[in-house]
């Protein structure tokens, strides 16, 4: 056996890819799943928290609602501060072992992983969404209210579509951060890419070679995510020009024939 061992760096890399390639790819799959699902659920949490945090309270709001609003705001603010203010690696330990010790819930490491990533992302997204909402020109809200929309309708049809478009880069940022940061879940033995790499490296004590491969896999995932999100951003921006709709008065000489492309930037 020993005689067959590779002697060069690239020899080792090839050897490791042959031996542990599928294990590493499986780990990468888990990483990607954790990151994508965590970011998605995190976005939903963040959206809800962010929206509630920007509900306006006016003189006309009745007292009961005002009190309820205060309580909910306090809870959400606490949530955001606590989960932004503690490391995810520590949150993973507390959630995984704490759920067992305190609530007697035997959570799988994977479930704990999803939970921690989602809740953590949610805390960051809440702030992002809040920022996205308050960055929308007040005139947009006023115009919506002036044509009779209530707060919910204004949010749903006018403010959120614009805010979401503006925070798309930040959502992408979070996805990329999550792809990398799910590596901390190895402490609760979630078999994501880092965990798989550590196991593989331990067998032959080839840490550098294994983690070089790991590095490349992480980069491919984040780079692909980054490009994909850029593509979606572009699509959301819409086309740069527009079509004039048929005009019976259009210039008969054909200098400006119907449906010519016009305008745009």
């Amino acid at each position, binding site marked *: 056996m020993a005689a067959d061992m590779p002697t060069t760096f690239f020899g080792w890399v090839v050897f490791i890819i042959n031996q542990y390639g599928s294990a590493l790819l499986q780990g990468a799959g888990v990483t990607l799943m954790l990151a994508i699902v965590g970011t998605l659920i995190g976005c939903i949490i963040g959206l809800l928290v962010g929206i509630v945090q920007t509900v306006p309270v006016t003189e006309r709001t009745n007292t009961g609602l005002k009190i309820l609003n205060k309580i909910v705001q306090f809870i959400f603010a606490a949530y955001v501060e606590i989960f932004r203010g503690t490391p995810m690696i520590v949150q993973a330990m507390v959630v995984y072992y704490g759920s067992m010790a305190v609530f007697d819930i035997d959570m799988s490491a994977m479930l704990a992983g999803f939970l921690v990533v989602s809740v953590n992302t949610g805390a960051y997204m809440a702030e992002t969404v809040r920022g996205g909402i308050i960055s929308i020109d007040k005139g*947009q809200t006023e115009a919506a209210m002036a044509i009779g929309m209530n707060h919910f309708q204004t949010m749903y049809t006018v403010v959120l579509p614009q805010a979401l478009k503006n925070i798309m880069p930040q959502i992408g940022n979070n996805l990329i951060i999550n792809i990398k940061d799910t590596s901390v879940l190895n402490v609760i033995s979630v078999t994501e890419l880092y965990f798989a790499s550590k196991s593989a490296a331990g067998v032959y004590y080839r840490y550098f070679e294994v983690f070089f491969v790991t590095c490349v896999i992480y980069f491919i995932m984040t780079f692909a995510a980054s490009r994909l999100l850029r593509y979606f951003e572009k699509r959301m921006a819409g086309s740069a020009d527009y079509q004039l*709709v048929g005009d019976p008065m259009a210039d008969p000489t054909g200098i400006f024939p119907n449906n010519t492309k016009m305008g745009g*930037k």
Partner: protein
Amino acid sequence: MATAKKQPILEVKHLVKYFGEREILKDIDFTVEQGNVISVIGASGSGKSTMLRCINLLEMPTSGEIVFEGKNILDLSNNIALYRTKVGMVFQSFNLFSNMTVLQNCMASPVTVLKRKKEEARQIAMKYLEKVGMEQYINARPDQLSGGQKQRVAIARALAIKPQILLFDEPTSALDPQMVGEVLGVMRELAEEGLTMIIVTHEMAFARDVSTRVIYMADGVIVEDGTPQEVFGNPKNEKTKDFLARFTQNA
């Protein structure tokens, strides 16, 4: 002009508005009758815009009453959103929804607020876009239009809720001079059709020629309220005279 028998559709009574310690509106009183075209003129900071914004409750009055069709809309029991569908607003900065096309902007209220069917809402929107001469641009986004075009779309959007009163907050102040005409033209047409309008404006010629009534405001009070002939031709108050004199000099 002022026929006392006519039932006013809007009555503003003792309207007071504070921003913090500053009293912006001091006891504003006036009534609007069906078909009135009221121009509100006055220097910047005189409270014109605030008064207009108080009328459709974008600013909450500190005290006073706003009576619309016999009901004080400041009563907590009244549905503000419903009231706003009857009192439209056109803004200085257009405020077209930038996530929607021209057509979607005009369909937003019929669909979302009035719960009309898409096809019906489209017809309503097209009708008013044709009125303002923007029917060709239904697929454009607001940022692809000129200022004058945006304001015309904004007027169509406001008309699409079929308001009983339309409020204009300096509708031409953000426009390049060559675009003012197209917007004023649309407004003039609406006035001739009998739409009740309150227009905060610096366009003195328009106020003089198109309005049925002119209100001059200074320092948060209504100084003069009368027909264009009265206010422009024979102002009673010194402040009004000064203000108008400065304007005719500049013109």
